[in-house]
């Protein structure tokens, strides 16, 4: 009955590879987000989707491509991984897309070697 789930929990990969992280929410929320938390614990928004439409794209390299097949899912695909991509990636959702309580997933720890 987990509200916001992400897979995988851990991801270790080599530089140059392509990888995907999946996110699903069963709360019936309209809006979903991807955040990056760096090694200093700084949390920064990357993308936001509202009803499958891209709303926010915060100067993220175009190697990162979000995809929302339906409003319950927001996946993150990363091409040509770099060392600096190592971080914890959090997915979140909120009910109506307006500034509202956000519900976070458990995070995916990505390590690029």
């Amino acid at each position: 009955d987990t509200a916001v789930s992400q897979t995988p929990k851990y991801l270790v990969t080599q530089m140059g590879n392509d990888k995907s992280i999946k996110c699903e929410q069963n709360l019936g929320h309209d809006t979903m987000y991807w955040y990056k938390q760096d090694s200093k614990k700084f949390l920064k928004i990357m993308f936001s989707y509202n009803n499958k439409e891209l709303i926010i794209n915060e100067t993220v390299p175009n190697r990162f491509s979000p995809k929302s097949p339906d409003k319950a899912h927001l996946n993150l695909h990363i091409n040509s991984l770099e060392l600096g991509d190592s971080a914890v990636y959090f997915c979140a959702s909120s009910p109506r897309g307006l500034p509202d309580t956000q519900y976070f997933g458990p995070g995916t720890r990505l390590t690029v070697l």
Partner: protein
Amino acid sequence: AQRVTQPEKLLSVFKGAPVELKCNYSYSGSPELFWYVQYSRQRLQLLLRHISRESIKGFTADHNKGVTSFHLKKPFAQEEDSAMYYCALGGGSNYKLTFGKGTLLTVNP
């Protein structure tokens, strides 16, 4: 532009002592303000939001519009309060929250 400043990266207190985590913001409209908490190896979760004016786990936050602050307070800290605390701001029809850089609170026995 929205900006959230948490001036203290680290804050250490003893159990039973009062604690205040500072948060200042800049925003031209009427802000929605939140405190989120991340316990060790757990997901972020909402602690409280200013509009509800609730007290959660003994924490309260006062919104001072004059000095644009939203400090988080607890009169008697407990060891289980040790965590990373993030202040966040959202406003208007914007779909995003802007987070501060976080304050790591350690409550010593």
